[in-house]
């Protein structure tokens, strides 16, 4: 039909579409594209203790890439990312699987799904703080373990440790896995499962041969969220490790605090490239536009 419309009409349709998206374009241009370009440019600038100024030097990158601290930090951040991703995937998949295939009424599905999503709309900072009474030296975890006789001394590594960081990440971000996986699972044709069962497949075979392959787009979208959120994080690592653990995001935020903007910009560029490579790999497995 559209091809039969006169060209003029089509053109005005085009410009009308542009009018409709113009606010979004303006916001993204000024608060996304321009900031990224600025970061890229400033990463070649020079700085001293109290100021930064235009230049074209590679020192920021050379210093960054030659420092063993950078590599150690990336290794640490990757460790957090892989651990968080692993637990978010296992837990998120199981929760979505339960909601999609074992809860039978739609009302209950919506209610339980909302129960999972409501924390997402509350403050992350408070959700982090709320682990203190649980994990602290005299916290619930330690005192229960002592009264159960499992341990004699309170465990020191519960709060302000890498364990606490990963726990908080999983607590904050599992939701980003549950939602897309649930979404793709709800689209799986139930007759496929019946057919498989009629053909004699066991529950486990149905899971591995039908549900997991068909949930892959959701798993990929969830993974992209979890990976980028953890890779760029600076606040969870700082708070939950008690300032003891490093991460790429923390390095950037420390450089910002020291007003070393060009150094921070160079770190940010490297972080962005790393994240983009990781996303590009994951995007090979999914077409996001089909999933909405």
């Amino acid at each position, binding site marked *: 039909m*559209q091809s039969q419309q006169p060209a003029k009409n089509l053109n005005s*349709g*085009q410009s*009308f*579409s*542009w009018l*409709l*998206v113009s*606010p*979004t*374009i303006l*916001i*993204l241009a*000024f*608060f*996304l594209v321009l*900031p*990224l370009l*600025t*970061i890229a440019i*400033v990463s070649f600038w020079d700085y001293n203790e109290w100021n930064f100024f235009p230049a074209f030097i590679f020192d920021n990158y050379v210093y960054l890439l030659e420092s063993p601290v950078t590599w150690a930090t990336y290794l640490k951040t990757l460790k957090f990312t892989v651990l968080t991703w692993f637990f978010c995937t296992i*837990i998120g998949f*199981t*929760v979505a*699987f*339960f*909601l999609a295939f*074992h809860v039978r009424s739609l009302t209950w599905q919506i209610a*339980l799904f909302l129960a*999972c999503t409501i*924390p997402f*709309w*509350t*403050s*992350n*900072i*408070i*959700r982090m*703080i*709320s*682990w*203190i*009474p*649980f994990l602290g030296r005299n916290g*619930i975890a330690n005192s229960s373990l002592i009264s159960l006789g499992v341990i004699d001394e309170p465990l020191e590594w519960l709060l302000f440790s890498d364990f606490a960081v990963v726990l908080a990440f999983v*607590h904050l971000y599992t939701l980003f896995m549950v939602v897309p996986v649930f979404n793709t699972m709800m689209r799986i044709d139930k007759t496929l499962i019946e057919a498989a069962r009629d053909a004699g497949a066991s529950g486990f075979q149905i899971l591995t041969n039908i549900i997991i392959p068909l949930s892959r787009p959701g798993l990929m979208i969830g993974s992209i969220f979890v990976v*980028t959120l953890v890779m*760029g*994080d*600076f*606040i969870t690592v700082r*708070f939950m490790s008690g300032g003891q653990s490093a991460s790429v995001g923390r390095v*950037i935020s420390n450089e*910002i605090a020291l007003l070393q*903007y060009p150094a921070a910009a160079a770190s*940010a560029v490297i*972080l962005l490239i790393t*994240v983009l490579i990781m996303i590009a790999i994951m995007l090979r497995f999914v077409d996001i*536009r089909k999933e*909405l």
Partner: protein
Amino acid sequence: MEPRSRSFYALAIFFGLFILFLYGPVITIGILSFQGPRGGLTFPMNGVSVHWFYDLFEKQAVGDIWGSFRRSFVLGLMVMVCTVVFSVMCGLAFRSRFRGSGLLFYLIITSLIIPSILISLGVGLIFNILDWEVHWSTSGMGSQLTWTLPFGILIMFAVFNRFDKSYEEAARDLGASWWQTIRFVVLPIIAPSLIGVALFGFTLSYDEFARTLLTSGSKNTLPLEIFGMTTNVTTPVLYALGTLTTVFSLIIILGFLLIAYLLRRRQERHGSDAGSGLV
């Protein structure tokens, strides 16, 4: 119905534990915020009181909590309105392909998954270089929109993918203008989803931290204020504040969900008036 399998019960227990994992810690600080005046940050409870809530309302060393709450609330409303309006416009435009739509789509996705600290740093740098003053209502709001808008737009994409275009065609056949079709046909149908977009817009802005860090200026928003408190406040007053703002968030969330539910109910009741106009 066939009987529940054994795996159902195992999964149900797993799900229950997950919910406990999600809500348990927050409930704990809810309880601990009622610590007695001499109680600490962990159990046991040292008496029960509202001492720490009372502390919050006293003007004292805790900082400018009420000012930052007011700012966060106003900012949340501003971001919410922009998110709803711009998302709907985007959703309408994206129903047909236009030049650059593919690029814009990837820009929207980028905005969603880019590490927040890059937005914070980049916007901070621009304002620094141009010698403009960062302020929560300008640079802060723009930075937050890079986080809330993609959510709103993706929700609108999902909504319009499921939208039955025959309603619009019917309206147009009856002589409605473009604006009349949107105003009297499309918007009422998608209204419950708009409430959802508004919920995202407000709550994500109200709780945003990373993208506001370098872009809000000298006056803190509430999450920044709370984070500042974590480094120097070591009394349950922190929990009291956490409890209050979580309760506030819950009221907002449940309010929005209730409105969306009522709208949908109304639609169902008034939905089909097919034939009633025929005499």
